[in-house]
């Protein structure tokens, strides 16, 4: 028996030596050592925890005094965060919204899987946005739950961390934005308590997505970047419900099937660098995201010429980035029962912030200004300006006829002007300044309600830009 016992002691000693050698943690070498940031999870218990003195930063236009510490209300302990959302007509701000940012170095949140808090409200309400990672800096790892419903009793809420390994130094502990859209403009109060980052262990089954999970195919142009949107991470919580957060692009790793055509940076901006085809996909923490963007790049985008500068008082602009535009009913009336085949214009293309109308399968198409908007009084104007690019070769018999209709449907008059094949140039922008007096038979032009582009299918694809009347 004695021997046996000694062996056991030796065994334990050996085991301890082995444990030291086989520990699960890998030691980093001295050179690789990181600065050690706080690993505190708590944000607010009965007081703000470790946030420093200057931590509350309201959004521009919000009521700056919305936040207070309420010592008469708490889920646990003696106090809670109280947010008084103002009435919509409050002169000091018509909503409540702010970030809670650590005053100092950020925290290491890599061992947590969610921001959690308890909340109740003075009435059942929907909070527009609540989350973390907004620091009024790069906001690189912002994560946001939208339209979160608070009841009048305390309940626990979870904002899952899309990928905690990214949060090695995070200052944005909590942010929210709440208004009165759903309460008829009337304010209310909500309370948050026991706000903290936690390792729940029950956040699982990640389903990330980009472009809201859609597989999109589109034309793209060299040097015209595209911003990826609809980036979300969805987890199944311990309650069995799926919780989706809007996740910033920096949580994702993007991939391109051809980086010589298109590539994506950590801010989710797709740079288009060459012609060809490329498909952008993404992963989040090694889980493939639903959704993809397939780009067909044929070359650079040929923008319309910038129109000559004019005093805006002398211009009525229908469609131009150079002027303030009047309201229109539509850029394509889709008069399909009348035999229209034209597609496009609904809405116009947005090429890196520059709007342009692309019509395809053109036979005729109308831009309407007579239904829900005031017709255009062009009596004092002298010319119609329009830039047109025909995206194909032009035959001698090809044409585009512009037609103006005055007082649509009520003693209607109309006049036309035909742009002939000699004026148009294949695959090039042509700027036209047409005297309104050339629209013969129009007569009165105080109530212009429709502008037609008519090709009778002689020309099928055109770009149109800078449509305005001037004097």
């Amino acid at each position, binding site marked *: 028996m004695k021997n046996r016992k000694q062996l056991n002691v030796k065994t334990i000693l050996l085991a301890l030596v082995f444990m030291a050698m086989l520990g699960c943690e890998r030691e980093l070498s001295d050179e690789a050592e990181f600065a050690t940031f706080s690993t505190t999870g708590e944000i607010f218990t009965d007081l703000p925890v470790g946030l420093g003195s200057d931590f509350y930063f309201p959004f521009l236009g919000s009521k700056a005094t919305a936040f207070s510490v309420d010592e008469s209300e708490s889920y646990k302990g003696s106090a809670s965060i109280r947010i008084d959302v103002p009435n919509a007509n409050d002169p000091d701000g018509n909503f409540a919204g702010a970030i809670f940012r650590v005053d100092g170095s950020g925290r290491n949140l890599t061992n947590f899987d969610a921001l959690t808090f308890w909340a109740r409200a003075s009435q059942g309400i929907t909070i527009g946005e609540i989350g973390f990672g907004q620091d009024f800096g790069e906001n690189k790892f912002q994560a946001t739950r939208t339209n979160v419903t608070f009841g009048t009793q305390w309940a626990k809420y979870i904002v899952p961390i899309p990928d905690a390994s990214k949060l090695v130094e995070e200052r944005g502990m909590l942010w929210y934005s709440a208004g009165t859209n759903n309460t008829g403009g009337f304010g209310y109060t909500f309370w948050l308590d026991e706000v903290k980052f936690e390792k729940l262990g029950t956040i*699982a089954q990640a389903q990330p997505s980009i472009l809201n999970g859609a597989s999109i195919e589109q034309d793209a142009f060299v040097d015209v970047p595209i911003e990826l949107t609809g980036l979300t991470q969805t987890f199944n919580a311990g309650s069995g419900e799926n919780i989706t957060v809007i996740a910033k692009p920096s949580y994702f790793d993007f991939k391109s099937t051809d980086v010589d055509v298109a590539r994506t940076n950590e801010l989710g901006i797709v740079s288009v660098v060459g012609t060809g085809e490329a498909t952008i996909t993404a992963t989040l923490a090694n889980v493939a995201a639903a959704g993809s963007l397939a780009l067909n790049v044929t070359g650079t985008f040929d923008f319309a010429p910038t129109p000559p500068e004019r005093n805006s008082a002398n211009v009525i602009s229908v469609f131009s980035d150079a002027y303030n535009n009047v309201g229109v009913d539509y850029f394509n009336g889709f008069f399909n029962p009348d035999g229209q085949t034209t597609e496009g214009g609904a809405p116009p293309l947005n090429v890196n912030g520059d709007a342009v109308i692309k019509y395809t399968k053109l036979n005729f198409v109308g831009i309407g200004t007579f239904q829900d908007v005031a017709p255009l009084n062009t009596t004092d104007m002298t010319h119609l300006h329009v830039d047109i690019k025909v995206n194909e070769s032009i035959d001698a018999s090809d044409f585009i006829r512009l037609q103006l209709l005055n007082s649509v449907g009520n003693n209607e008059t109309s006049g036309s002007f035909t742009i002939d094949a000699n004026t148009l140039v294949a695959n090039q922008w042509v700027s036209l300044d047409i005297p309104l007096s050339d629209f013969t038979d129009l007569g009165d032009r105080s109530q212009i309600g429709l502008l037609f582009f008519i090709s009778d299918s002689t020309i099928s694809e055109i770009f149109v830009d800078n449509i305005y009347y001037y004097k």
Partner: protein
Amino acid sequence: MNNSYIHKKTKALQFPSLLFVMLLLISSCETDDAQTVATFTDLVIADEFDTEGAPNSSIWTYDIGRGPNGDGWGNQELQYYTDRTENVKVENGFLLITAKEESFEGATYTSARLKTQGLFEQKYGRFEARIRLPYGKGLWPAFWLLGNDCDQNIWPQCGEIDVMEYLGDSPTKVFGSVHGPGYSAGEAETKEYSLPNDRFDTGFHVFGIEWGPEYINYYVDGNLYNQITPDDVSGEWVFDHPFYIIMNVAVGGSFPGSPNEETTFPQTMLVDYVRVYKNNRLN
């Protein structure tokens, strides 16, 4: 480390004790499945699911279709059970029971239900399986035992022992139950077990019972969480005859409710092993 448990319980004892300790240390980073609640150690039958393809036909047979009355096995379940590879196979050391969303024989889902009826039936002992569960509303997997006399003594008279039942929209909870005369279906004697800070669809867990005359002990991993005795049930104790094993993944029906738009398919239950030990206290 699927086999750490087996090493410790069966093979390790053959090694010198130092080696045994080293082995424990090497595996110390892994989740430890060792449990001390079970006392029966004489293995009678085990399927470790090490042979790829269809499950071992000397142990397993199948229930096919939608139940003897075509009513979703009495529960309005939505799946059609098959023995196709798509629904049941052994791969990479695991038994995979997969529920799929597809039109099949008038049903909108397919799945599988394996059983040892007529192949392996036993009275008393320890029945244990190591399982990773699927998730999502409408999924209802189970590892359970049914009395082998249900043809003569209509259920619930023949007895049912549910070692593990789980609903896909409660991924942190399982429950163990017995059904018998006067205490069946909604009136069954049952108890829930909640996994602290973890869930059943992200890793493997051991589900077992130890069953002897006048008691059934329920455990998950190393935790004994319930004992059911004749005093606990409101009717006749009907657990003194041989039972056979059933493993299945049901979809929908009156108990779990239908899958919803958030339920993703396919969903698979992975079984690392099924082991049965005899009640060695009886000898």
